[in-house]
């Protein structure tokens, strides 16, 4: 019984993924990226309101990777970094904290 349940469950998961793959296209992913970009911009504005400029810039950097042509992005970047900033602070890489990455595999 448990084998049947597992097989049916896995089948449903695969079916959901396959259906999504068939019914969407690359444009869907582009639109999803724009939606994510908008979410980051909203959060950047919230961070700016609470006075955290670094966090706001961090959100803008992520937003820029998703939708570099977003006009709202540039407006928010100007707001955060002052009128002299023509684009989000993506040129400056944030000070990288030393990151230790351990991948133990299986």
């Amino acid at each position, binding site marked *: 019984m448990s084998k049947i349940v597992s097989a049916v469950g896995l089948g449903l998961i695969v079916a959901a993924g396959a259906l999504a793959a068939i019914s969407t296209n690359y444009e869907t992913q582009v639109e*999803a990226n724009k939606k994510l970009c908008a979410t980051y911009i909203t959060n950047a504005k919230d961070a700016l309101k609470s006075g955290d400029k670094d966090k706001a810039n961090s959100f803008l950097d992520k937003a820029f990777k998703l939708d570099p042509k977003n006009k709202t992005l540039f407006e928010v970047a100007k707001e955060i970094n002052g009128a002299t900033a023509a684009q989000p602070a993506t040129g400056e890489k944030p000070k990288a904290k030393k990151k230790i990455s351990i991948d133990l595999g299986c």
Partner: protein
Amino acid sequence: MDNIVLPLFTSGFMDNHMNLLLAIAIGIMFGFILERAGFATAGHIAPIFYFKNLMVAKVMVSAIVTAATLIFLGVIFGYIDYNNIFIPSTYIYAYLVGGLIFGVGMVMSGWCPGTAVTGIATLKIDAIVFALGLFVGMYFYFEIYDGYEAVRELANSHNLGRFTINKLFGSDDIRVSYIVTLIASFGLLAFVTIIKKIIDSKGEN
């Protein structure tokens, strides 16, 4: 929920402290599930390499397919930022050599690092011995890495960066990665199942 982007930590929605707490919680769940699935016993893991027991292949394929599907759905519906999912850089030669050593070790011992930790938690002596060997091996590697230029060159050469399946096929569309993952996973399961049936029919298992 509307203003949240997954993964929470790398997308800036969770601080380091909470991330570590979440990692501990996920680790506990993961260890529990591994142990319940029988992965805390080397005798359940090693037989896959002799095509005697397909439990490992079935569980791994189920896990890969489930994770791939959930990530795929999350990305295309705008809940997961694909750029923020951690994918280590691909160092071709280092991974080939490391994979070879890993594979030999796994067949010999019946453990891999993750399952060995589960085995240690259930006080398996062979898992403890495996873990000791693991640390000795890592220490040995760190020593030769520092000591020999050739090792450093091999380890750091041919870095393809964050290389995904869809990039291999020259596409930005992650559906390519998802479909290839499904085909490869089920293909592998079919392959080991067929080999097992052949061996069983010859009466060698």
